[in-house]
């Protein structure tokens, strides 16, 4: 059966869909409303005229008003007649193809062709403009004639007179309008004030010499200032003064201080832009602010030969880009790791830009932790909370590097009127400095060369920088710290920034003053550090058996850390309960290290697993939930080793394989197949199995290590139970049975004490099992502690060091999830 294709408007639709209008043989039928709407409108107009007659003469009735308008409203009928003819014409066109063709193609088509041939588009535009003008003048004349009850021509002639008479009223309206506009202008003017402070040379006393620990960045910044001070130096050689610097890095690393130093050093005005300056209630205020800011900057730049503007917390301007790809080595993640915790040997710098962008985008894409970042960026009603949004950022971009249009009324209009070319704008030497700790939230367009030419990372200071910073701040107060102690302090505060160092020194001073002393001692510094990093200890007393269990748990960590881990030093071991842990062993890297190795990760896992192995060993295969954090760390590291870092039995990256959906490889491909292994079986092992196997192997190793060092574990547990907190050196002293700074480890060389400790532990294990109290008293070793320590072992001289912000939680081994042995 064949379905005939019909082109008629009433026929079924062709399979290709609705026909194009110019393909139809007849006119497309009009909907009823379109057919009637003008007639309805004219009826309404006519009744309006009738009403007008009745309104203007109170004695005219409705019927007579209609009769009157029948004659005086003739033009409505004329228009209605024309509309009627038009609709009839359409109706015929809808049904008669020949008629439709004649009008569309022959008549109008021919007319249009003729018109296009004779008149250019521009002429037609002008002609149409004239017609439009004439039409509206005619309409106005007719209306005015009606209103003034005279002929349209008379009304038109008298129009100037009408306007003149209406002028007072018009002026009145204009004044009202002006008042309304002025109200808004005044509101916006007031709202666009503030947030911008101008400092002139010598207003700020901070100098470059006050910025410590960031010398490499400082040198670069100085270079920019030099060029701003003497632009000819670079411009005479065909270059240009770099216009923008972005300082990015973790909070407190001295970005603002550096900018302040720039303000102090430079001989140019310095404009500080408050981070909140562009957060407005109303749409458009931000744009006004940016424009007024740059107007001010240009004025200052011209007057003083240059100006520096500093946007603090520049991320408040961003909010458009997910990534600042212009930065050469922005980290892929959101955290900004310390210098020694670099994620790769070369970053992405050896890759092509396209690949860099792709990888960076992938790295920044939410990995489950933030599935819908857009939601958090929703601008509320009234545009409130809009930071750099609502056109502010765009305005800033344009001002930074937009079209350099000629400025000034005379320059732009009068000169052009006289046929002169407008003068180009002068060179405004504006150095834009921005600081942020969220570079990835800045717009890419903002960071392109020409706007922000130089991007410097102001990271955590190196050890040398920290030493210099400590020296700088300690020089301002009275202290008795030796250079060695300051060096030690710099070592045990690896992530300290300028701000935290300043704070620590101040806290130490407060501690000293509270004790009634004028001079800061080493003890004050350590107490201040403990207070700042751990908060005040919770004054909680464990029950005896639990204290012992926690001590054993931490002792296992400390022992395995000491025995196996060479890249970290124990900083502190404590069983004092903190806000979210029962005890901890914190480690620090003794030196700035930038790479991590497989052997190191393995020892990290060993240290993590030490708690589980130790609890099982010392408590007859019982173990607490306190190991959960340790197991999490161990599993995480083992997973990364196996699937990401090529430290397992495969080479390919699991994350990439998963993302590209190519499937993950089995084991055995990493060249680490051992003798006797069945390659097929190895291939089939899933990633999770391989991780579990690896962890089990390491657990066996750590069990062996603890078994070999059982005495040392009990010694350490005893020392912890006695002193609550041990410094790293004391831990080593106890294990090595030698004198430490606060604890004399030699007492643990006594086999009798070790026997007592074993008996005590045996009783503690029984008490643990039976939920009773320990039958024996803890062996008394207090007299053996070094009484010479001024700090004393009573807790006030404890060395408590906070865990460093290790993203994987490797350095600290807390016993935090629950009471051990519960």
């Amino acid at each position, binding site marked *: 059966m064949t379905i005939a294709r019909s082109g008629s408007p009433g026929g079924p639709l062709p399979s290709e869909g609705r026909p194009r209008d110019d393909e139809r043989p007849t006119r497309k039928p009009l909907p009823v409303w379109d057919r009637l709407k003008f*007639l309805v409108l004219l009826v309404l107009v006519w009744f309006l005229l009738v009403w007008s007659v009745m309104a*203007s*003469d*109170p004695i005219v009735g409705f*019927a*007579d008003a*209609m*009769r009157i*308008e*029948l004659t005086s409203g003739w033009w409505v009928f004329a228009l209605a007649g024309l509309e009627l003819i038009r609709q009839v014409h359409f109706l015929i066109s809808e049904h008669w193809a020949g008629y439709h063709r004649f009008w569309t193609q022959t008549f109008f088509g021919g007319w249009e062709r003729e018109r296009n041939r004779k008149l250019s588009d521009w002429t037609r535009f002008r002609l149409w403009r004239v017609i439009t003008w004439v039409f509206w003048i005619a309409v106005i004349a007719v209306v005015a004639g009606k209103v003034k009850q005279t002929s349209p021509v008379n009304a038109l002639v008298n129009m100037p007179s009408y306007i003149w008479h209406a002028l007072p009223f018009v002026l009145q309206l204009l004044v009202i309008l002006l008042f309304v506009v002025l109200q808004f202008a005044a509101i916006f003017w007031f709202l666009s004030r503030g947030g911008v402070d101008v400092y002139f040379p010598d207003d700020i006393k901070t100098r470059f010499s006050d910025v410590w620990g960031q010398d490499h960045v400082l040198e670069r910044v100085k270079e920019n200032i030099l060029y701003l001070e003497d632009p000819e130096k670079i411009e005479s050689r065909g270059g240009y003064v770099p216009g923008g610097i972005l300082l990015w890095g973790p909070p407190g690393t001295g970005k603002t201080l550096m900018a302040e130093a720039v303000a102090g050093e430079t001989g140019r005005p310095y404009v500080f832009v408050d981070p909140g300056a562009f957060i407005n209630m109303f749409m458009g205020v931000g744009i006004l602010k940016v424009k007024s800011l740059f107007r001010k900057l240009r004025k200052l730049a011209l007057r003083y030969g240059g100006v520096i503007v500093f946007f603090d917390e520049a991320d408040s301007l961003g909010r458009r880009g997910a990534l600042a790809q212009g930065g050469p080595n922005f980290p892929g993640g959101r955290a900004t790791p310390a210098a020694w915790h670099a994620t790769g040997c070369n970053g992405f710098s050896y890759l092509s830009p396209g690949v860099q962008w792709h990888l960076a985008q992938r790295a920044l894409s939410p990995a489950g932790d933030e599935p819908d970042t857009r939601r958090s960026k929703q601008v509320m009603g009234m545009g409130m909370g809009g930071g750099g949004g609502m056109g502010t950022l765009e305005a800033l971009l344009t001002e930074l590097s937009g079209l350099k249009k000629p400025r000034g009324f005379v320059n732009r209009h009068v000169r052009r009127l006289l046929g002169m070319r407008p003068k180009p704008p002068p060179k405004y030497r504006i150095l834009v400095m921005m600081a942020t700790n969220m570079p990835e939230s800045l717009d890419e367009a903002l960071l392109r060369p020409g706007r922000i030419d130089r991007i410097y990372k102001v990271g955590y200071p190196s050890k040398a920088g920290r030493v210099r910073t400590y020296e700088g701040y300690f020089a301002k107060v009275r202290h008795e710290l030796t250079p060695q102690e300051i060096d030690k302090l710099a070592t045990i505060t690896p992530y300290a920034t300028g701000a935290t160092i300043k704070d620590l020194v101040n806290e130490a001073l407060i501690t000293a003053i509270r004790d009634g002393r004028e001079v800061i001692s080493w003890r004050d510094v350590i107490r201040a550090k403990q207070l700042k990093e751990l908060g005040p200890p919770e004054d909680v007393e464990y029950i005896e058996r639990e204290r012992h269990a926690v001590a054993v748990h931490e002792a296992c960590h400390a022992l395995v850390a000491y025995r196996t881990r060479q890249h970290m030093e124990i900083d502190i071991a404590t069983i004092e309960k903190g806000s979210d842990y029962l005890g901890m062993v914190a480690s620090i890297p003794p030196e700035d290290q930038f790479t991590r190795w497989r052997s190191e990760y393995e020892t990290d896992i060993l240290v993590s697993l030490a708690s589980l192995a130790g609890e099982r060993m010392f408590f007859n295969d019982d173990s607490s939930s306190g190991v959960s954090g340790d197991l999490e760390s161990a599993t995480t590291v083992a997973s990364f080793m196996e699937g990401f870092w090529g430290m397992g039995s495969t080479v390919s990256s699991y994350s990439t394989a998963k993302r590209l959906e190519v499937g993950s490889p089995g084991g055995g491909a990493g060249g680490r197949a051992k003798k006797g292994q069945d390659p097929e079986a190895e291939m089939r092992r899933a990633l999770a199995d391989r991780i579990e196997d690896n962890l089990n192997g390491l657990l066996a190793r750590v069990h062996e290590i603890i078994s070999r060092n059982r005495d040392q574990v009990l010694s350490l547990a005893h020392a912890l139970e006695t002193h609550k907190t041990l410094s790293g050196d004391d831990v080593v002293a106890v294990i090595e049975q030698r004198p430490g700074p606060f604890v004399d480890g030699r007492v643990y060389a006594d086999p009798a004490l070790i026997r007592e400790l074993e008996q005590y532990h045996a009783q503690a294990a029984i008490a643990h099992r039976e939920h009773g109290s320990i039958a024996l008293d803890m062996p008394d070793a207090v007299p053996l502690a070094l009484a010479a320590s001024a700090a004393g072992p009573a807790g006030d001289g404890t060395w408590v060091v906070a865990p460093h912000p290790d993203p994987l939680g490797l350095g600290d081994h807390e016993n935090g999830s629950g009471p051990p042995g519960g």
Partner: protein
Amino acid sequence: MAGVAIVGCAAPQYHYVADSADNAYFKVPPSWHQVSPSSLQAAEGSQSQEGTYLWSVAYDSAKKPSVDHIFSATPTPVAYSSVLSLSSAERNDLSFNSMRDLLLPVTSQARKAASTAHEELSGFASLSDQVVTDSHNDRGIREIFDYDLGTSLETFDLTVMANSATTKLYFLLVHCSASCFAADYKQISTVVTSFTIGGGGS
């Protein structure tokens, strides 16, 4: 539209006369014709005894309208209306009696004064005397009276109103011979009762 057209097929039943500026309105049958405004103006002058003319109009039911029909006896009805502005002195002198005597002596004092001056007016007879008040608080009088103008007895229907602020004086005079008036009273009454002033203080 068609229905509307049917309604409007006939011409208006009346001719509506309006002075929009001064808010004076009345209607006359469509067969009445307007008297030439220029001849009317020439006949009345710019200033009357009572005030200054702001607007004047006259309609004549005769086939050939003439200003003479207004100011003399006529066998067919004529309507003559004016608006006068009143000065403060004129306002002070304004009273219902002065309204009655606006065009012809109607009150006894006025008639006595007129006879003293030997004017040729006789045969006065008052047919109706009303005080008129409208919703805008405009007040005035309506007088119907006869006068013998020598040729025949003429009946006059005079309505005089002042606006509430007494700044303007409005009048409508319809007259014709007594026989004509009696014959066409219905038509004349329609004209006179349609006389409306807009009120207000302007």
